[in-house]
């Protein structure tokens, strides 16, 4: 196979560097490993020098973490596969921009899958999209300016979070209704988005409904009650969520 994908590893631990290097050599022949960096500083220099398509990036390192490294770039024109031992705080940011990550100890299948996905995006409209959105989100101090990347059949769609009116669940899919009337169906559960968008004024009011508080124009009392949103649609509030719903308004 032709070595078409230039790659760099940024990882502080020697054992991990070795492991990743070995597995890439063995199972991802299309990847051409250009360099291995042991810190953020080394990584920045290596990326500038080699202009890789893929960067394998450890999230936690001494002397600065993965986000410190990304913040150094004006614009990003490489794909990132995050490598981490912990599913922690960084995950939300990664998921928002639909970035790829693999967990340590490295699962070889996951590694292959991630590399394959990225290879498909190269030279398409979605090239580096995820990385770019991630950087933007890191940079924007205002929560309202942040964006979400949602995978579609034909690739990624980037949506401003503030444009989403509501999300509706149907089985393992979620349908988003936007302010401009468009709608997107995503093959992720509503719960996944509830976690992601919880920090952006989104409220779960019903088993099937996640709504953006900023679009509520009326609340109708009832057993649970219902809300009327600015697009004229209504969403029921189930008794289970009623209290949390009312509580969140008290805080306003």
């Amino acid at each position, binding site marked *: 196979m032709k070595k078409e994908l230039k790659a760099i590893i940024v990882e502080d*631990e*020697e*054992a*991990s560097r*070795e*492991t990743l290097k*070995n*597995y890439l050599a*063995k199972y991802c022949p299309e990847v051409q490993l250009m360099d291995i960096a042991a810190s953020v500083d080394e990584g920045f220099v290596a990326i500038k020098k080699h202009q890789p398509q893929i960067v394998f990036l450890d999230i*936690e390192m*001494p*002397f*600065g*973490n993965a*986000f*410190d490294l990304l*913040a150094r770039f004006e614009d990003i024109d490489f794909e990132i596969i995050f490598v981490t*031992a*912990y599913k*922690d*705080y960084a995950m939300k940011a990664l998921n928002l921009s639909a970035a790829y990550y693999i967990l*340590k*100890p*490295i699962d070889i299948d996951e590694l292959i899958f991630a590399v394959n996905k990225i290879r498909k995006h190269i030279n398409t409209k979605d090239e580096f999209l995820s990385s770019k959105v991630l950087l933007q989100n890191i940079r924007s101090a205002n929560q309202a300016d942040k964006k979400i990347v949602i995978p579609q059949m034909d690739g990624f769609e980037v949506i401003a979070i503030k444009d989403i009116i509501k999300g509706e669940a149907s089985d393992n899919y979620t349908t988003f209704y936007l302010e401009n009337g468009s709608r997107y169906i995503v093959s992720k559960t509503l719960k996944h988005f509830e976690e992601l968008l919880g920090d952006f004024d989104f409220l779960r009011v019903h088993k099937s409904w996640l709504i953006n508080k900023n679009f509520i124009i009326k609340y109708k009392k009832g057993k649970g009650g219902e809300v009327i949103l600015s697009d004229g649609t209504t969403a029921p509030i189930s008794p289970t969520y009623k209290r949390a719903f009312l509580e969140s308004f008290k805080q306003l």
Partner: protein
Amino acid sequence: MIYKKKFLLLLSQMNHSITYNTFLNLLFALVILLPVFSFAQKRSSYSKEVSDYDSCNIKLDSAKVIFDKNPEKALDLVEAAILIAIKNSYPEIESKAYQVLGDFNFDLKEYDLSIKNYENALRVYSTSLVESSSFSLDDNVRSEKKTAKYNKSNEKQITLDYKNLYKKAGLSALYLNKPEQSKTYFIKLLTLSASGNDQANYFFAKQSLADIDVKIGQYEEAETYYNEILNHYTKQADTNSIINLNIKLGNLFKAQNQPQKAISYYSTARDLALKTDDDESVNIAFDNISKSLNQQRDITSQMKVNQEAMRFNEERGNVKELAKNSIDMGYLYLETDSSSKAIEQLERGVVLSDETGDIETKSKAVKALSEAYEKEGEEDIALEMYKEYIELEDSVNKRYAEAVEMNKQKGRLLENTQNKVLILEKDKELNIKTIELLQREKRLKEEQVKRQYLLIIFLTVGLGLLVITSLIVYRNNRLRRKANRLLMLKSLRSQMNPHFIFNALNSVNNYISSNNERAANKYLADFSNLMRNVLENSGEDFIPLIKEIEILELYLKLEHSRFKDKFEYLLKIDESIRLEKFSIPPMLIQPYIENAIWHGLRYKAEKGFLEIEFKNTDQNIEIVISDNGIGRKRSMELKTENQKIIKSTGLKNIANRIYIIREIYHVKLDVIISDLLPETGEGTVVKLYLNKQTFQRS
């Protein structure tokens, strides 16, 4: 007392110590002192009573003695006695005082007043007797004393007093010419004497009743009585009384205008009296025989009897009586118009009465002489005599008036006393009312005290319950808190940092990726060994020290194999420590080592050094973890903004754990963290001081 102490202790635990303490002490003092006070009061009144009582008796007795000579002083004494008696409520004294007053009046012939006093005496007596025997108005001590007095020595005295009172009152009424009233007294005396087998008083009462019957004209009853009494005295051979009764029977028939029968009784009396040398009775008999004969207009016999009497008196030398006989004789001669003989007798009477100084009799004689001289025609002498008679009469009247005046004086004094007594009586009534009021007040107070006692008891019980409840609640809270802490401790303890586990597994992955089968296998075995040890001991609060050291050795080995280029290590254990003797909470030291590697040594450019030392001192086992890494300050500085989002929870957890362990297990455990090189802030030294005594294996 112990209970009280405990109680106070509990109270002070509740932080109300000062106010409750004083309050309670006051309550206890009150409870103890109340009965003591009331008892003392009773005692003092008791002893005072005795002396007052005796002094009253003495006062009354001396009053009786000195009344004749010094009535003023006597009355003062009676007054004083009554005052004390009324004040202290001695009815017996009061009654006695009235009796004394009655006697005084009786002596002065103020029978109206004497009856009143006797009545008062009787009234006080009867009410006091009822009082003492049936119920007590006052407190128990006093009434007990009173009844005791009545029951023993005074019972006889009381009946005696009663009889005396009835007798005197009866006589007073008789002299006042109130026979009906008199009768009631004597009937009482009669019944009282009959039941007491007191013959003297019994027959006295009977005789008096007979006398009254004579007075009110019930002659038949009187005669029966007299005969009955006479019968009795005849049996007794009481000559004096027989004489007396014969005279009385004579009087009875004389009053019935049966002079013949009367004379026979009088004669019997006279004859008996002559035998017993009872001159007075002889004279009374002679006099009455004479008077009875006079009723019959039998002057001759009368003169004969008179002469007999004269002869008797001449013999006996009864000058006074002889004078009277002579005058009587003179009168009889006057009646028979033998004036000269009359004059002779009358002159003799004058001479004899002059001898005895009996002006009254002399006056009578002089008056008759005047009459006799007039009949003789010697009117000058008659006039002379009449003048003398008038003079004599004047002096008699004067003497009489003097006596009356003296009596009146005494009477006034008595009246004065009587009035004072009246006022005292009224005072007494008032006093009784006041006493009743005081007693009612006392009872109210007692009830109040009782209520206060109850209140105190209720309060004490209530407080006790409150304290107990609070203690139970407090204890439950403590237990719950302890349980919570234990739970928290469980959640905090022996958590091997998940990072370590993933990193360890990552290392295995590394050996696999480089096809180093032996290394992978070795590493996996060590790791498994460590995990097994950790898991096995994770359920324990304390594990043997030797076990903890084993775990540390494994951990150090695994970490070192990952960071071979970063540090070397040394584990030093003082051989004098008897490792098997102590136990410590599991995973107590590991977090400090992890910290030393991850935040100290890992950042160091050159190879660092980690030393763990177990030292043995007198008191403690000292565990020293020292590294020459970059130091705590530098480590913080190196963290970027993005890295600071993650907070290190390892050290915080261990601090919490140590705090809770100390609280629950009461062990002495101190941790001191310092820089290895204070000048540069490089390196870190953690010292754990484990008190040997508290960490000994149980």
